[in-house]
């Protein structure tokens, strides 16, 4: 094992929660904290250890504290942030060019909307899907869909009976999305769910 890069809190970012993806010959990832404003970053690192902080989240409409991996689709990177400055919950979905130019596709947190994504996105048949640990009409978490245009919809709001607090990505199997919740179900030990959009 050889360390190829040691991060500095600013500007690189700190707290590497999510994994890396390989994209255009380099590795891309997110940090939960650190960066210019302390709200996390998106970074790029080459196999030789040359690292660039591509973007520092501001905690505003772009969100704060990304916890998930990125997904690369048609030459752009897509990801989530879990929160906004000064709050737990809400967060955003963003897309980013390889050079670090960001577009916010959706801000979570409207009444009944999903809130607090703690994982990245899954891309299937032209649409992105994800889970949030909070939000939905019951505040227990949700499964959402979002188009590259930014049009977002809630596919499912969890109830105590069918699951609470999904915190990871869904996996697509033949058009059905499968995932887990950390709580809920009977006897509140977590569940496996299936959503067919």
């Amino acid at each position, binding site marked *: 094992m050889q360390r190829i890069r040691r991060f500095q809190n600013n500007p690189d970012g700190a707290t590497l929660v999510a994994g890396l993806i390989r994209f255009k010959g380099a590795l891309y990832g997110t940090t939960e904290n650190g960066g210019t404003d302390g709200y996390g970053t998106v970074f790029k690192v080459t196999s030789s250890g040359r690292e660039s902080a591509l973007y520092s989240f501001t905690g505003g409409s772009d969100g704060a504290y990304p916890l998930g991996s990125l997904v690369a689709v048609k030459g752009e990177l897509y990801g989530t942030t879990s929160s906004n400055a000064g709050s737990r919950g809400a967060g955003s979905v963003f897309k980013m060019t390889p050079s670090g130019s960001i577009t916010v596709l959706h801000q979570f947190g*409207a009444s*009944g*909307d*999903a809130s607090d994504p703690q*994982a990245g996105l899954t891309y299937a048949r032209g649409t992105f899907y994800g889970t949030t640990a909070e939000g939905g*009409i019951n505040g227990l978490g949700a499964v959402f*869909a979002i188009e590259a245009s930014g049009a*977002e*919809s*809630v*596919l*499912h*709001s969890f109830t105590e*009976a*069918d*699951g609470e607090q999904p*915190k*990871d*990505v*869904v*996996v*697509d*199997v*033949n058009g*059905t999305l*499968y*995932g*887990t*919740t*950390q*709580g809920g*179900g*009977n*006897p509140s*030990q*977590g*569940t*496996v*769910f*299936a*959503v*067919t*959009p």
Partner: protein
Amino acid sequence: MPVRNSVSFASIYSFQGAPDGSIPEAGLIDVNGTLYGTTSTGGTGCSGSGVSKITPTAQPSWRA
């Protein structure tokens, strides 16, 4: 933030704590149509985690 109503949702398994485990912290992976995952605690003796698998059919079967 429209709610999409034409969505089919199913809670296909509730972890029981023992012997199958509880509190899955991570997601699932698909291996040729069978899903595999982990639980963070529970299982026999409640001392650790387990690996489970599910075959997504009308009657899912779990093997903990």
